[in-house]
């Protein structure tokens, strides 16, 4: 099985500071990490390779510092890692991101399976997976919470759509976007980390995809959408009424009145 995993480097969301007054995201306030859902994607890929053999390739588009995300992917089991980086790629929306990722996927090999995260925790659109599938003209399954069986010829997954759970069996090639429920990513061992150090991050720039995409189709130029403005909403501060340990009885009695006033009590 030839598997490609799409990985995005994102800010550590827990630590990012948002400036409500200036409407700014202060990215410097936080480090970077691999988008959490992409670790589930990578874990799924490694598990399939352990079962069926083959190889796992990790691909990311981003600035140079995204190399560290790929090093982590290598430590977590990717055999080869590629960084798409070029000033022409900057400012991309999901369409031009997906156009470049799909062009690189075509160039890098004949992948049976491409696995992406459900969404990124920064851009948050959940669009890159399905759009990459569209550019490659292949099927995709989104919101995959379980891979129930996988063989050389087909794969069966569970996905939640239409307020129900569906089991779908596909043949390859196929793209999946996966949720956190899929698995618990293993932590890399010391040995894995040492091995990953030696793996070279291979760089691809616009040259690598120029046979497939014109300059005007990538980066900001190839992006039909743009962010005009960012607003950091003021935190909704509620006026909290606090009841301490010794006021439980009063709390329960007060609430009874509030619930009745809201017409929420049993008729």
């Amino acid at each position, binding site marked *: 099985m030839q598997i490609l995993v799409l990985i995005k480097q994102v800010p550590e969301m827990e630590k990012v500071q948002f400036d409500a007054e200036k409407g700014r995201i202060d990215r410097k306030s936080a480090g970077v990490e691999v988008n959490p859902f992409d670790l589930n994607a990578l874990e799924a890929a490694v598990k399939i390779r352990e079962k069926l053999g083959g190889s796992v390739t990790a691909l990311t588009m981003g600035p140079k510092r995204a190399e560290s995300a790929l090093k982590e992917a290598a430590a977590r089991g990717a055999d080869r890692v590629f960084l798409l980086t070029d000033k022409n790629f900057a400012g991309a929306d999901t369409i031009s991101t997906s156009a470049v990722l799909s062009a690189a996927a075509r160039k890098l090999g004949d992948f049976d399976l491409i696995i992406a995260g459900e969404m990124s925790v920064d851009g948050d659109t959940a669009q890159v997976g399905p759009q990459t599938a569209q550019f490659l003209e292949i099927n995709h399954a989104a919101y995959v919470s379980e891979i129930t069986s996988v063989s050389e010829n*087909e794969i069966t997954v569970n996905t939640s759509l239409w307020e129900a759970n569906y089991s779908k069996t596909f043949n390859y090639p196929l793209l999946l976007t996966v949720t956190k429920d899929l698995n618990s990513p293993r932590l890399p061992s010391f040995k894995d980390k040492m091995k990953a150090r030696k793996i070279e991050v291979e760089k691809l720039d616009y040259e690598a995809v120029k046979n497939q995409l014109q300059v005007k189709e990538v980066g900001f130029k190839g992006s039909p959408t743009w962010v005009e403005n960012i607003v950091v909403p003021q935190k909704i501060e509620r006026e909290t009424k606090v009841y301490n340990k010794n006021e439980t009885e009063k709390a329960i009695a007060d609430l009874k009145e509030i619930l009745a006033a809201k017409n*929420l009590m049993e008729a």
Partner: protein
Amino acid sequence: MADKNKLLIIAEYSQNRIHPVVFELLNKGRKLADKADLSLSVLIAAADNIENKELNELIYHGADEVQLIVNKNFSYPDEYLFKKAILNFLDSKQLEIILIGATHFGRSLAPGLAAAMKTGLTADCTELEIAEDGSLLQIRPAFSENILAHIKSNTRPQMATVRYQEFTRAVRDESRKGKISIEKITLKENKSLKKVEKISDQKINITEAEVVVAGGSGVKTREDFKMLQELADIFNGVVAVSRDIVDKGLMPRESQVGYSGQRVKPKLYFAFGISGAPQHLAGMKESETIIAVNTDPSAPIFKAADYAIEGDLYEIIPEMIKKYKKS
């Protein structure tokens, strides 16, 4: 009206009904269409003929035109097939705006449609406006719900998925008139999808309840959730959980509230033994009233709550049941 450009809503028909988000889109869509001088159409793809009575409801709620395309393969959610069919059917020339409900299916279907039409798509919008230049201003939360991004597109149609339960339902007006057309279409089968079956309905629907009784890691066993259920029953409410509870396998994931679970906006949200991580708050912070019970007075959930009760949920819940239950 024939030469007006269109605002098109692509409707989800699932669970034998037009998904309720469509009626919210009709409310917003009607206002946008009037402001930008567009006609308002709804396109539905369904496996069987939908009764005129049901289609008329779309007109009563604001649509000028309803188009139904019918093929038996629309009986299961196959994005690839729906995408092909819709692209085949659409005449993109007069399309100014396309809105799609940001359900799982909508968010999985819309990106492929947009990429095929080489047009921009804004994800999971919570507000839409017609800007001064006549274009669509699309507002959406990003960075794990921490910011609101204002987004525009320089291609047509301008496309957006729109969050469910963000807008109120359109008002029903039985005197409204509009056009309904139904067309049986043929489709090539999708050879890559070899088998598809529904394994279960998501029986738990926490997004529509008026009262949500949520439990987190402070609740220790599956058995203990019966206590929360008993409290929920008093208010005709539902039980929901934090992700830790789902991770431990104590409750199904359909009942998870938060960034990677469901978003809820009930009249009343109880948080028992939930610390109030940002990813949990993302799913419930807009509830009308929030009551938090926690042994730790410094738990972040207390800052997000209207009523913060310091104490042990194992003592407080039984006491609440006793006091609130009608004997």
